[in-house]
């Protein structure tokens, strides 16, 4: 009897050791740089395939008023923790301005009132968090393409970078500021808007007041909140971690269509 238990104990122990070794082996493989570069092949394939199938103008699904989520979860920063933002908020964003610069012919500074006076698009769309949950909301805002046309892109401009007022991760070197970027295909997509209104009301602080990006064919982390500036650039390598976005610098795909 005792022999059976010993043998069973041995088997259980051996199995646990083997699975621990297996796990450690898997983790080591996950962290290996060569593995990472091989896995990155998939991101390029996914982006090229989606772009090929999508074309430039295929629209994300738009829903009806009845589909709007009763509560729209706020994710990431819900209250930026810096003096400049708190000042803006206390003045109900009357002193806030959106800066449009970089590789453009006519750099601009637009107040919230000026943005709201521009022709707008309203769309009821689904927000898909990379974590897996979704919420449906109604957004109204200025089509980014129209703004970029007014500013006049220089021929060498390839990407549009969005600067934000939230430092999502406090770091000594300031690399924790939220930022995002998209290419010109998505920048000029008809559903890509700078939203100032959500579900018929001014955007709430938790959802990115006073202005957030909506790029409806991509995941939630592309929908940058608390916009302060838009910059046209030729490449993304010089910004922060060089991968084109806060989460991209932390290992997530730049093209977030899947």
């Amino acid at each position: 009897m005792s022999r059976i238990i010993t043998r069973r104990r041995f088997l259980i122990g051996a199995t646990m050791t083997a699975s621990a070794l297996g796990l450690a082996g898997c983790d080591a493989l996950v962290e290996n740089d060569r593995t990472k570069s091989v896995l990155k092949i998939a991101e390029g394939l996914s982006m090229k395939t989606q772009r090929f199938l999508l074309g430039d103008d295929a629209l994300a699904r738009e829903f009806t008023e009845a589909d709007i989520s009763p509560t729209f979860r706020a994710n990431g920063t819900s209250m930026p923790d810096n003096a400049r933002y708190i000042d803006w908020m206390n003045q109900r964003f009357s002193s806030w301005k959106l800066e449009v610069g970089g590789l453009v012919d006519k750099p601009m500074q637009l107040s919230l009132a000026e943005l709201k006076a521009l022709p707008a698009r309203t769309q009821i769309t689904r927000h898909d968090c990379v974590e897996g949950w979704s919420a449906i909301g109604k957004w109204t805002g200025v089509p980014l393409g129209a703004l970029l046309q007014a500013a006049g892109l220089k021929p060498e401009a390839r990407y549009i970078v969005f600067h934000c007022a939230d430092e999502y991760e406090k770091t000594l070197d300031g690399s924790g500021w939220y930022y995002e970027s998209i290419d010109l295909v998505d920048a000029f997509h008809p559903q890509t808007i700078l939203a100032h209104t959500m579900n018929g009301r001014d955007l709430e602080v938790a959802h990115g007041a006073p202005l957030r990006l909506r790029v409806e064919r991509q995941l939630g982390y592309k929908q940058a909140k608390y916009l302060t500036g838009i910059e046209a650039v030729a490449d993304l390598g010089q910004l922060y971690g060089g991968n084109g976005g806060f989460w991209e610098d932390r290992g997530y795909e730049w093209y977030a269509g899947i």
Partner: protein
Amino acid sequence: MATTDAGMASGRTLFYRHGLLVRLSHWVNVLCMTALLYSGLQIFNAHPALYWGQYGADNDPSFISMVAEQEGDALKGVTHLGGLSFDTTGILGVSNVDGEAAVRGFPNWLTLPSYQDLASGRRWHFFFAWLFVINGFIYLAYGFVSRHFRRDLLPAAEELKPSHLGHEIVSHARLRFPKGAEARHYNTLQKLAYVAVIFVLLPLMIGTGLTMSPGFNAVAPWLLDLFGGRQSARTLHFLTAFSLVAFVAVHVAMVLVSGVFNNLRSMVTGYYDIGQGGKS
């Protein structure tokens, strides 16, 4: 299945059962589905809850969720299934990480990587999803062109008669497996299981997976209507994955009880020993 027989010494008949392409795609599939399952559970752990319909987040009613609840000093893992709740401490909701109770949907030994890392989980999942899809297309093309599906997997009309099926189910339950001439082809239960996996479950897996992609929704909006929304598709993706796990469990059990060495040899070299009387 080519019909060349070899190795007839000592009363055995080695029969060439699986073509090279079938064997290769089978093992590539094993690799892909293993990586996809474990990285998929990693992705699920980023938000361990499933919903029906077009949207679903924390405050929406869920179909299933695995949460941690504080009970005194201890963390309790609770799994909600519709209106039912189960204490699943240690496995679902709360499990052991380095000797301490941690909030975790599935435990670390079921996820790739073992620690919580959604970005890595996604990279592994999409890499092996591509490999799996490419492998699948090659197999499908081969299966149709070589007539492998029609010859080996399509059940004949008489095989689908209730009396025949009943007979096969009884022999299976008694673990009596065909020998000799009968073992030259799959039995009806095998055929039906393989057809269901190849033509129903695996395409469903890919279809529901693509339905979760906001980009692919713009390419093929009809997928959203087919599966009733992104969150329904996510739930079906999970249920289909579990159906595949169940299939693999039965498949491996059948391999073990019906002659593990013979089965493995046939899936590695192609040759299956049909035993005595193979020529009849």
